[in-house]
């Protein structure tokens, strides 16, 4: 029976569609034309300039701190939440589940505005702490559902067996839970870290003066029209993330192969 070639063609076109803007960006970052116009020769000036932009590096630092704290908070809350949701079936857990699910169903801008109103009403000054609170809030659900996916395969009788053999909770957590659930928790934490580092909209509404994260910095640079150094910054960022993704993909492939 002949299979239609249409899906193959559509896939090829989609991949081209995905890569053309990115490739343009990479090429333009080496273009000596200031406003990313027609090709005027190869240059590394934008990369050199970027190294001297203090604001960029402060934004990078802010982003990393925010992501680190948010990941920590969201991983603890999300893992505990997933454990409870998986273990108990009660009215309380039904409410818990609904509340865990709801943030995924709300556009970012609504979450950003409502948190801004909340902080303004409490009189909290906007800054890195408010950004971290906001990030933990939107990351918790992602961690929770990632960990819950792994928990479903977890055999709880292992805990009962350990308890019957006299193990206490610290030992159970250290010897049973962490080794078995570790990959799930790690996957959730990585997801939280990525989401936090990448977030623009919620951060934009909950940030104050001096708490510029990298996406907020990129946004204001695009607005100002200083595209050339931002192109260079983008290429560097892509290079870093692509390397991480390819390396981790390589390890995952290897592990699956064994």
């Amino acid at each position, binding site marked *: *029976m002949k299979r239609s070639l249409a*899906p193959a063609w*559509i896939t090829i076109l989609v991949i081209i*569609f*995905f890569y*053309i*803007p990115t490739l*343009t*960006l990479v090429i*333009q970052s080496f273009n000596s034309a200031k406003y*990313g*116009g027609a090709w005027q020769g190869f240059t590394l000036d934008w990369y050199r300039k970027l190294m001297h932009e203090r604001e960029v590096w402060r934004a990078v630092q802010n982003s990393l701190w925010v992501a680190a704290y948010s990941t920590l908070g969201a991983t*603890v809350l*999300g893992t*505990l*939440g997933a*454990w*409870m949701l998986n273990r108990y*079936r009660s009215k309380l*857990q039904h*409410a818990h*589940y609904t*509340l865990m699910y*709801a943030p995924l*169903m709300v*556009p*970012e*801008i*609504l979450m950003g*505005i*409502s*948190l801004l*109103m*909340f902080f*303004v*009403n409490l009189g909290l000054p906007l800054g890195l702490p408010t950004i971290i*609170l*906001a990030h933990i*809030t939107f990351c*918790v659900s992602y961690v929770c559902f990632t960990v819950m996916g792994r928990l*479903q395969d977890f055999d*709880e*009788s292992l805990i009962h067996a350990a308890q019957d053999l006299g193990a206490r909770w610290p030992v159970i957590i250290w010897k049973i839970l962490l080794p078995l659930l570790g990959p799930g928790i790690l996957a959730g934490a990585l997801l939280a870290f*990525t989401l936090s*580092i990448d977030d*623009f909209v919620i951060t934009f509404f909950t940030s104050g003066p001096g708490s510029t994260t990298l*996406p907020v910095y*990129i*946004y204001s640079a*695009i*607005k100002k029209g200083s595209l050339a150094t*931002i*192109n260079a910054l*983008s290429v560097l*960022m*892509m290079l870093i*993330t*692509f390397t991480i*993704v*390819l390396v981790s993909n390589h390890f995952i492939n290897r592990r699956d192969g064994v």
Partner: protein
Amino acid sequence: MTLNRPPKRSPEWWLTLPSLGWLALFFLIPAALIFLIAFRPALPNGGIGAGWSLAAVKSLLDPSYPMVIWRTIWVSASATALCLGLGVPVAYYIARLPAAKRRWVLLLIILPFWSNFLIRILAWQTLLHSEGPLKQTLELLHIMDPRTTLLYNVWVVLTVLVYTELPFAILPIYAAAEKFDFSLLDAARDLGASQFRAFWTVFLPGIKRGLLTALLVVLIPAFGTYAITDLVGGTQAEMIGNVIARRVLSDKNYPQASALSAALCLVILTPMLVALFTQRRKPKAQTSNSN
């Protein structure tokens, strides 16, 4: 598995409290707050006044809003339709590849989306810029008038929206397609169904859950589109998100921003709640089956 133990209420309550309490404090209360602030008066120089007022809610009748709301709905719906329309054949193609190839094609599709969301928008701005490669080529070929611009219209917003959301539509559809038993398609063909009919009546219903997830994953962020319209759309392509942001950032009219947000919230949550109550706890039911 937990049934053979006596029910212990108190540890459940205490260990549920952190995540439940956090979400109640930082998600539920702020959301409820929006509905409250919508009924407060705005101060002339920004901020929220004392007492109650219907002014902000009445401002929803602003004659410029229906246009913006209509645009938000049709752009979001078109983006979702395009993402599903492109996502299904791509997911189908990948799911039928040999396993070793599958992972690489999948990686190829996800890779550009590991870069920052704003960088992806910036990439389009660079591509469509008046001195950018696409415009220059079109001018050289005399297809485009040099005075017109490719940027700042609603079609760019739609394109970039599809560009940013498509992988998130492909992934759930692929996850469903991967579990689909493709011999069913061959069976349908053997029984005389045309290729199109087999696809339409066997494959699509078989990946229903994936399609539903993809639909939500694209439609919800699309409704809240803000950055894309702000950076490549311009004023002609404004969506609700931009109006809300303007009320907050430049007018500092928090009650009006809240009224608009509350309205958007209701538009999105009503169908969700209906869906939630009609197919309650389905994921849980499935879990206990698989155990």
